[in-house]
């Protein structure tokens, strides 16, 4: 048995279930193991990122910084998103909301399909199915990301991600909570159309998330001419984070696969991407604390939604 599954089982049995029992929340016990899996695999993701990306950043950097203080808040974002509170809230909140919404749809005659029902031949080929799901979801994410640069109110939130001038492998989860929420809704909408396999393949999800983290690493790593066109490399994604690409006129929106940028454009393959950051972002978004960044992002979001009227 996979030791990670064993660890998740131990966590569920010895921590999550007793906690739910003592707090009168046993009705959520069916979700306990899924949450434990998420936490264990999230912790391994972080460990793997640290073990592989840190040496890359140390010995093969693209930028040298006098200190890494600006990275600290990104570490907090990562821990919160991958092993902390957010998965727990997401599990409970989204389970409830999703169940209610699906119930409403079912009452109106719509049962969300799955990819395996749309293509029956996929049943029994879980890895092929997963690959297809990964491609479709990555494609959907490409458009979500692209649109987040297109609309001012959305980019006001997404600017938090781009504001970081010391972009490292910790920067992947640096997002505004509202931006995360929109991404979850987007993901939920896709799930209603084609279904999304839950944690059936945590190891593969782990690999994909690792690739997303790696693409933010401060390293000049490239996968070679062909490799860069199959998987997104740190150089490719750094071009998206470069100062000229901040805001509406950006490029390289993909997260895992570069095909969508090559298909819809613009895809830029360059060995010298330039420094990352967004010169239009408030300084609070760049170097503020977690709460200061969230608040600043929210204010920018409101300003973009309700611009002040200028006197005529």
């Amino acid at each position: 048995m996979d030791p990670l599954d064993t660890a998740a089982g131990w966590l569920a049995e010895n921590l999550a279930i007793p906690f739910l029992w003592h707090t009168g929340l046993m009705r959520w016990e069916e979700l306990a193991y899924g949450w434990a899996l998420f936490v264990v695999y999230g912790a391994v993701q972080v460990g793997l990122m640290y073990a592989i990306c840190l040496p890359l950043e140390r010995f093969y950097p693209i930028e040298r910084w006098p200190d890494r203080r600006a990275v600290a808040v990104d570490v907090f974002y990562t821990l919160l998103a991958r092993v902390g509170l957010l998965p727990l809230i997401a599990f409970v909140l989204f389970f409830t909301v999703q169940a209610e919404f699906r119930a409403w749809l079912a009452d109106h005659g719509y049962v969300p399909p799955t990819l395996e029902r749309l293509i029956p031949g996929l049943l029994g080929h879980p890895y092929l199915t997963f690959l297809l799901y990964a491609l479709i979801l990555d494609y959907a994410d490409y458009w979500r990301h692209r649109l987040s640069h297109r609309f001012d109110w959305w980019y006001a939130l997404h600017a938090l991600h781009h504001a970081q001038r010391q972009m490292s492998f910790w920067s992947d989860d640096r997002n505004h909570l509202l931006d995360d929420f929109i991404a979850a809704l987007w993901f939920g909408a896709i799930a209603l159309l084609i279904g999304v396999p839950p944690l059936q393949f945590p190891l593969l999800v782990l690999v994909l998330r690792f690739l997303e983290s790696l693409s933010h690493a401060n390293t000049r790593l490239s996968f070679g001419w062909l490799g860069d066109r199959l998987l997104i490399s740190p150089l490719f994604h750094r071009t998206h984070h470069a100062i000229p690409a901040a805001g509406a006129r950006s490029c390289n929106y993909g997260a895992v696969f570069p095909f969508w940028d090559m298909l819809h454009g613009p895809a830029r393959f360059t060995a010298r991407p330039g420094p990352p950051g967004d010169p239009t972002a408030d300084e609070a978004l760049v170097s503020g604390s977690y709460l200061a960044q969230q608040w600043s992002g929210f204010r920018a979001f409101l300003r973009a939604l309700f611009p002040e009227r200028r006197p005529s």
Partner: protein
Amino acid sequence: MQVFSRPLCFPCHGRLRRKALIGGLSPRLSSPRLISRCLGLAAALVLGASLPARAEELAFVLDSAEAAISLVDVKTEREVSRIPVLREPHHMALSPDHRELLVGDSAGNEIFFLDPVSGALKRRLSITDPYQLQFSPDGHLLVVTGLARNQVDIYEAGTYRLLYRVPISAMPSHINFSPDSRVTYITLQQTNRLAAIDTASGRVIWETPVGDTPAGVLWLRGRLLVGVMGADGVAVIDPATGRLLERVHTGRGAHNLFLTPDGRTVIVTNRVDGTLAFLDAATLTVRREIRLPGGPDDLDFAPDGRIWITRRFAHSVAVLDPESGDYQVIKVGRSPHGIWLNTHDALARAVGRAE
């Protein structure tokens, strides 16, 4: 302890099939025939990867976290194959004619119909959120609870035509029936209640509070026993009025209840304590407790008297000798939930525990 007879009408048992294949490779065969047999064998080997298990006596174990059904050979106690489903298989029920095993895939919104002897997939049916499913004792109805969708569906068995959808709050979970099939009893995990529903009309007859997060419900000698998962035991309920008669301490996280084939003992799985409590069915006193960590959940009875129990968090099935308390462990998928052995006819036990 083979209590019920096995279905007899299923041809082409795996052992015979395998014998035929291996026996076919005789040196006395003529070349064309040999080539033909070899090609046949090769094709069989290729296809064999996707064929279900070939053992005759199988345990069906539903893995809710890996979207699969593990088939375990009861004799060798080894997993022999896995059947893929869509998302989350939790529970299953044998059809009244014993020809189909219905596996509910709640998040996949489908029921998979399997051959209960071989495990072969026969057909699929779209049904919303089939979390728990159970046929009525008279075999006329199938009741399905939608845990995530707060609904109880009553279907006509055989045609699977929806007769009534009963919206009910909240998290309808386990099911049982009165022996005359007129009433189905449903535990409501979120609102801490037990509901009685008239199967002829879909009308809720009564709802009653039974304790924090009720789970399994069992009709026993004119009373209802309810596992109260958020507490430490079983609530005993009057099925006519819904009145709470008494509470029986069994252990923290009392989850599901099973009547042994001899009708003398009720076994309660205690999820939080990691124990099995053995209750005298007549007096409801705890006669024995066996420690079984790993989140004991569902169970079934093997012909040799041992008990097969899924362990949700230990990725395994425990095969327990109730006399000695010792158990062996069979590794299966990530989160084994429902279990059923085809070594007996589980239908009567599943729906008619009453008598």
